[in-house]
């Protein structure tokens, strides 16, 4: 029985549940997991991210989001230099010195992440031991954790997975006999979180918490009473660790679009035994608003073909939304990593015949893209302008990670993100 059949969903004829996947290796035009720091450092307000890496790492984070003109960020890099590599300096002593200087400068830090990088992994610098040591030194004022955002192990959004996975062991255990609690997992914009909270409250689903929390001190409890909903599709390790602590995953597609949001909410409602009438009463207005918002962009997008280069792992849920709610035609949906279990319902909903690809050989994929002449290409910042210059309309994918797109009241905005490049091309007469 397929996952969607279990949820009693209207399936696309065939779906992509068992579709073959083109796996390629070659040059990957994707960010590494360090890039997740760009939104995580804003999401968890008393946390600081210290990358232990090279000048390349520092340069990447500062370049990737063009954050240079903002206020002082809550991230920095401890740049490994020749002396550290030659053994002239003890890496651990150096790291302690850097962390001490940083904490003096930023006394507001409550949680410090030591973030591993390609060089720190290759020289086998043990950041988990360093984190334990520094935690002892700076406790109870500052807690020090570690995770790896290295490119040799993580792609772009997997950095968030690694960060949240590092938080799971820190979550307090639920009290014995605690009543059932819902945990929403994955960084969401605050406006989306607040909307979700209101909907869950109206459905009578009690004790809802979010991972990551806005403050490090507000880590929610977890235990066998925890049912969790993934708000993002890239959280494989975090999910595994939550399950080790007794939590159970509620199977659902992701809350993108009217349909996705309804199915996502319904997964929780069903688990809580919410009556269908109440569910309808709570969600009908939002769903209607979402459908109206989406309808405004339908003329611009219906029938248009779309090609996804791999980027954030959001590609499959996005393609599902665009195909089912806006009648777009996905030609190829590339993803850096395909988690079949977490995406089972999504794959069932994707139109049969959609080509799926995992990993990347960017030159080959560009050849396929040029041959297919899609109406719209979703790709990273390195590819977007060159494709535009070739006359291909693009939507840069990083915006889909930095914009509130989940939930009913963002569904129209999400559709608008895809309609805008086409609208723009139509307007310009220069």
């Amino acid at each position, binding site marked *: 029985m397929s996952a969607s059949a279990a949820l009693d969903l209207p399936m696309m004829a065939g779906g992509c549940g068992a579709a073959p996947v083109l796996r390629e290796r070659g040059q990957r035009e994707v960010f590494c997991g360090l890039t997740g720091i760009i939104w995580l450092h804003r999401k968890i307000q008393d946390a600081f991210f210290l990358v232990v890496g090279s000048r*390349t790492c520092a340069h990447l984070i500062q370049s990737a989001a063009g954050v240079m003109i903002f206020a002082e960020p809550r991230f920095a890099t401890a740049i490994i230099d020749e002396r550290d590599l030659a053994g002239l300096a003890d890496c651990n002593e150096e790291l302690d010195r850097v962390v001490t200087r940083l904490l003096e400068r930023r006394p507001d830090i409550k949680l410090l992440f030591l973030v591993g990088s390609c060089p720190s992994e290759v020289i086998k610098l043990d950041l988990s031991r360093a984190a334990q040591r520094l935690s002892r030194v700076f406790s109870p004022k500052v807690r020090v954790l570690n995770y790896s955002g290295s490119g*040799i192990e993580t792609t772009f959004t997997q950095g968030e997975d690694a960060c949240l996975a590092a938080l799971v062991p820190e979550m307090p255990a639920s009290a014995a006999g605690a009543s059932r609690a819902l945990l929403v997992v994955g960084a969401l914009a605050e406006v989306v979180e607040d909307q979700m909270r209101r909907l869950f409250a109206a459905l009578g689903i009690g004790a809802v918490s979010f991972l990551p929390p806005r403050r490090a001190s507000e880590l929610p409890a977890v235990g066998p009473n925890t049912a969790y909903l993934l708000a993002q599709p890239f959280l494989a390790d975090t999910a595994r660790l939550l399950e080790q602590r007794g939590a159970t995953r509620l199977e659902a597609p992701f809350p993108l679009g009217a349909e996705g949001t309804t199915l996502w909410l319904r997964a929780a409602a069903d688990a809580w035994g919410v009556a269908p009438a109440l569910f309808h009463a709570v969600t009908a207005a939002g769903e209607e608003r979402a459908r109206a918002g989406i309808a405004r962009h339908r003329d611009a997008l219906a029938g248009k073909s779309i090609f996804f280069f791999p980027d954030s792992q959001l590609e499959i849920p996005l393609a599902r939304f665009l195909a089912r709610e806006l009648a777009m035609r996905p030609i190829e949906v590339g993803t850096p990593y395909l988690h079949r279990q977490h995406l089972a319902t999504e794959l069932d909903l994707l139109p049969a015949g959609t080509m799926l690809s995992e990993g990347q050989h960017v030159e080959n994929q560009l050849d396929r893209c040029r041959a297919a002449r899609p109406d719209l290409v979703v790709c990273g910042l390195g590819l977007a302008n060159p494709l535009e210059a070739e006359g291909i309309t693009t939507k840069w994918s990083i915006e889909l990670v930095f914009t509130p797109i989940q939930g009913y009241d963002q569904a129209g905005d999400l559709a608008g993100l895809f309609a805008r490049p086409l609208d723009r091309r139509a307007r310009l007469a220069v």
Partner: protein
Amino acid sequence: MQLALWTYEGPPHIGAMRIATAMEGVHYVLHAPQGDTYADLLFTMIERRSKRPPVTYTTFQARDLGGDTAELFMTAAREAFARFQPQAMLVGASCTAELIQDDPGGLARTLGLPIPIVPLELPAYQRKENWGASETFYQIVRTMAQRQVPPPGTRRLRAEGARARCNILGPTALGFRHRDDLREILGLLARLGVDVNVVAPMGATPADLARLGDADFNIVLYPEIAQQTASWLTRSFGQPSVRTVPIGVGATRDFIREVAALAGVDATAVLDDETSRLPWYARSVDSTYLTGKRVFIFGDATHAVAAARVAAQELGFTVVGLGTYSREFARDVREAAKLYGIEALITDDYMDVEAQVAELQPELVLGTQMERNIAKKLGIPCAVISAPVHVQDFPARTSPQMGFEGANVLFDTWVHPLMMGLEEHLLAMFREDFEFHDGAAPSHLGGKAEPIAEKAAPVAVQESPAVLVWSKDGEKELGKIPFFVRGKARRNTERYSTERGISTITVDTLYEAKAHYAR
């Protein structure tokens, strides 16, 4: 290990990319892990280039490390040659690949490709972006031009009546105003009647580099990038170099004279018809208020040194701080700083720069995007004079730093963030006007007043001993001093009081200190 909130330069392989991307017919195969492709967006988004940089990344992952990363490199190089058909190939490693020691140069040579291979050794844990650009340019020029080098002792001869020819060396992709500087300099050379043999790296092919030796002399626009190459060309081909960087009116005049001398042309007509408004605007009475404004300057060595000369000699500012992140050129900056009676700040640590700006409390900061950040935090006006680049440093209009038009651009961009003289006076006279107070930005910038100046104050307070206290009246009177000199006034008053064992600072102490330091 160095704590870096921001970094002034990228790693050296970014410098190599700036050379490869500036040129035509070159491809760079870079042994690098997944994620290093972020560098492409510097060129496609910040500089808004319409083509991807000519770079192939091997993209190795953790699972490859135990296996054959060398084979991965060979495949990438082979495929890149077949697909892009370059005239020359640069090969090298990024920081992580350097650690696994696969020797890209050696591997590439075994492929037997029918083009020159330029192996790049760019130590990523020791060197930075500009050094990487310089080294890459030098290596590719040597590789391409080596065979044309005449036997030692050969004299350079120019045919009777032939026009002088020069090379222009230094402009790269992702350079701070390189595009517009080049245009300005090409215009100047045309007016002088000097022909251009090759511009490199920008727009040059490997074949063009092979004929660098045909020129009579070289012009080094950006020493950080081209000085090493120019020195080799001098040794190999006997070509002299023009070393004056034409930023500012005075330097542009010097540059023209230097070019004219090497080219054997008469520069009088060009010098008599100079097109900069800066000299007159600086003399115009409304510029009186610029006199002695305390300016802090930080950037790459070339731009910082040039900015100091313009600031001091052409705008009448007082240079109170001068520094660079270009350690390779520290000596030049130290020499320049001596002219202003100050000690140069040589550092690539943003926090050191921030501390010095806070300490000096200048009235204007001329720096990079990072200093813009510092200045914003401290409520000090700022103009950007140097890389690292931001998308705003690639304006649609032509906006050079060099030549006479460049001098016009400097005048506008440096004076613009400042308050006009009368506005500054009014602000000092009516300090307590609720709409017209401290944090108010210059009226032409339209910013709303922000309470930023107050945040800057504690920097000075922390330095004073805890026993020293300000009386309520004293504190209030201090508040009437314009914010851009208040930090200095506070510090001076506290130092004056400490030296005299005064424990409570009153209104009188404040004015006694003022009189003391005014002498």
